């Protein structure tokens, strides 16, 4: 995708670095507004970034 550090991504999303880390490691499911911000930032459909785990 992009060669961004967690801190860079956190700054662009206006969240803490810990939040980015928790999302990346699957310890936190982002809210819908944050998931949409992430999708907009990466210019990708939301379902290509987040997958349902049955």
């Amino acid at each position, binding site marked *: 995708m992009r060669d961004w550090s967690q*801190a*860079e991504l956190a*700054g662009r999303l206006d969240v803490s670095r810990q939040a980015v880390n928790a999302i990346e490691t699957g310890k936190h499911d982002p809210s819908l507004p944050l998931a949409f911000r992430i999708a907009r930032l990466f210019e990708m459909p939301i379902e290509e970034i987040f997958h349902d785990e049955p």
Partner: protein
Amino acid sequence: MTSHEQSLSGEARLKQRRNRLVRYLALTLFAGFIGGVMTGWAGRLVTTEALPVPLFVGLWLAVLIAFVWFTRDYFRRVDELELLDNLWASTIAVYAFFAAAGSWFVFHDIGIAPPPSGEALGLFTFAALLIAYAARKIGVR
């Protein structure tokens, strides 16, 4: 977000965000300290009848409103993960309080424990809150 902030890199924006939060926390801690000192001082004046009770109640109410306002404002400033960590820690602390208080009252009623102490229960609840918050922070989610 201002156009100046948008022109910054994400890392610079994150640093700004962190600094803003630290300044805000320092301000709230200072305000809390001043509020505590003022109500303590006013309380002493009431006991010596140097301050009318309605004035003390007014001051107490102002400090209480400031406390609630700052708490609400803090939760609106932090991101959703921090908010969740705080809410989970608070929920666990409330459960710990009711479990401890209920148990202590029962043990006291059957004669195997001293009378429940508000200070001890308050400290226990605060300790439970800190432990739950720290556990969330080290990744126990």
